[in-house]
């Protein structure tokens, strides 16, 4: 059978389980596809060809197992998930030669479900960025148009899925890092409720905002991936005990009567005409199908970018303190003393955006500024969270754009503040700890780049999100 790589994750899983195809064939085909597309896309930092082939072979020897819903399915992982014995770099020079001594919980769970990890994908260094442009190992490219960014920080995973290298993968989302690249590359991506998936073994950017999540070409594929990895973890004190639903068993939700809250602050923002048309068309189509579109207001939304960057950078600045050149990672050559070891190692190996955020976060926590910045932001966070929870009392979901701009050209550089402001649509969801699903609704007016939309669900409302996502998918055919 040829072109196995084109199968969706759910199709592939079914064929594998039915022994129509072998794990080795499926994995081999994806590896070949990776080899063919990498020169253009650069989605991967490490391709685990040998390991993946060996794992597939071992699976084939034992045969399919209905208890392993992802048996033989190749997946890609953002290179922020620790993989025991396999280099994990966070796209940083700091960890260029770092090999973790343990597996992230997501990795363990994926393997238990029978999945085969084939690649570690590119990202902005330590997940700080929105284009993969801050990867120390060069940016990834958007498979739709290689002059354009794939988004970020999980841009490598999105590009890999969009380039049919893998049927699905995992990224992490601190302020939009799954949903934005999924949207820019025409994939489906889910940022689950905070605590839905264990963060154990995911190199931390901002501990109270980070959440791993699936990316794929279909809603149901994301549901399957989430089901496999969700749940409590004895090693993560923030992983929730909330029951894990049969996410992959949900049925499409009736659009008629679906109450969709449309935050004015986001819909009235300055949205690029390239996106504006397709987004408005999507709204019209939903209304026509009987959805109740309710303009709502999120009064404290205007503070969300400021709040987010204070909190994320504050947490990030101290999460980055362990990268000190003492126990692992880059160490400067022949340091004279301890101070030089610290300062030179860190300054040589941490990139400009990481340094900028460390500085901002350190400042926000430092003596004299803590109350005005960090603590103030934490108070405003509660207001924003409460706004979102309140909005969701009267609506089934909130519906918002993902970005105000389509995938941009590599040549275009945003100044830091502008770049931060581009996260406006996605980051409040992280502040509130809610789940957000990103899925395509059309293509740009002139350039034809994918256009995505975001459904925000209730706390642990992933099943409902997938259910609504399935009916959206019926109305807005997948782009991939």
């Amino acid at each position, binding site marked *: 059978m040829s072109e196995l790589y084109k199968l969706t994750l759910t199709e592939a899983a079914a064929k594998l389980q039915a022994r129509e195809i072998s794990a080795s064939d499926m994995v081999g085909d994806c590896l070949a596809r990776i080899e063919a597309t990498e020169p253009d896309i650069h989605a991967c930092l490490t391709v685990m060809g040998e390991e993946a082939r060996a794992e597939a072979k071992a699976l084939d020897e034992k045969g399919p197992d209905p208890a392993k819903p992802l048996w033989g399915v190749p997946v890609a992982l953002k290179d922020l998930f620790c993989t025991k014995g396999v280099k994990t770099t966070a796209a940083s020079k700091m960890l260029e030669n770092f090999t973790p001594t343990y597996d992230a919980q997501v990795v363990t769970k994926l393997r238990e479900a029978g999945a085969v990890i084939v690649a570690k994908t590119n990202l902005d260094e330590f997940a700080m960025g929105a284009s993969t442009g801050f990867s120390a190992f060069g940016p990834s490219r958007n498979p739709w148009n290689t002059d354009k960014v794939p988004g970020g920080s999980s841009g490598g995973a999105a590009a890999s899925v969009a380039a049919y290298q893998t049927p699905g993968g995992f990224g992490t989302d601190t302020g939009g890092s799954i949903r934005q690249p999924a949207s820019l590359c025409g994939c489906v991506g889910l940022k689950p409720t905070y605590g839905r998936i264990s963060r154990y073994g995911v190199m931390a950017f901002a501990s109270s905002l980070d959440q791993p999540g699936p990316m794929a070409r279909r809603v149901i594929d994301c549901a399957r991936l989430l089901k496999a990895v969700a749940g409590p973890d004895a090693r993560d004190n923030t992983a929730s005990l909330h029951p894990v639903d049969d996410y992959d068993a949900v049925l499409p939700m009736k659009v008629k009567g679906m109450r969709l809250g449309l935050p004015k602050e986001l819909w009235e923002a300055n949205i690029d005409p390239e996106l504006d048309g397709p987004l408005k068309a999507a709204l019209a189509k939903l209304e026509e199908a009987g959805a109740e579109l309710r303009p709502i207001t999120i009064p404290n939304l205007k503070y969300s970018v400021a709040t987010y960057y204070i909190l994320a950078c504050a947490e990030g600045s101290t999460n980055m303190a362990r990268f000190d050149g003492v126990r692992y990672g880059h160490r400067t050559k022949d340091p004279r003393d*301890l101070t030089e070891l610290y300062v030179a190692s860190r300054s040589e190996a941490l990139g400009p955006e990481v340094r900028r955020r460390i500085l901002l976060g350190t400042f926000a926590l430092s003596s004299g500024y803590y109350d005005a910045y960090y603590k103030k932001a934490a108070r405003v966070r509660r207001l924003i969270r409460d706004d979102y929870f309140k909005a969701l009392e009267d609506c089934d979901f909130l519906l918002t754009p993902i970005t105000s701009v389509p995938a941009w050209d590599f040549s275009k550089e945003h100044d830091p503040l502008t770049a931060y402001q581009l996260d406006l649509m996605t980051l409040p969801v992280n502040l509130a700890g809610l789940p957000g699903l990103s899925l395509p609704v059309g293509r740009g007016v002139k350039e034809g780049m994918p256009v995505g939309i975001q459904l925000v669900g209730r706390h642990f409302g992933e099943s409902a999100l997938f259910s609504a996502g399935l009916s959206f998918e019926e109305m807005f055919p997948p782009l991939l």
Partner: protein
Amino acid sequence: MPIDLKIVQSTASLARLNLAQGLEPEQAQADLEKLTHELATIVGYIDILGEADTQGVEPLYSPMLEAPGAREDVVINSNTTEEILEQAPDRIGSFFAVPKIL
């Protein structure tokens, strides 16, 4: 709060960063000024938080609504000493090694 060169430099030192690392003095100065300007712009924008009415609002440090209980006090030996030490840039026996602390 206006951000100036001095604050940027003292913050960098707190974070064990040298913003001039590997740069010629002129370049270093130019970069530092650019960075200071960027940070000042960002912090200037962030000062919008001052407008938010947070009187009587408790800070929210985590969106967690419930958390699993504490861990049981039972030893698990990970036996990863050698793997962990193998990552060390410098080691002596089974110690991590750094330049002598005065």
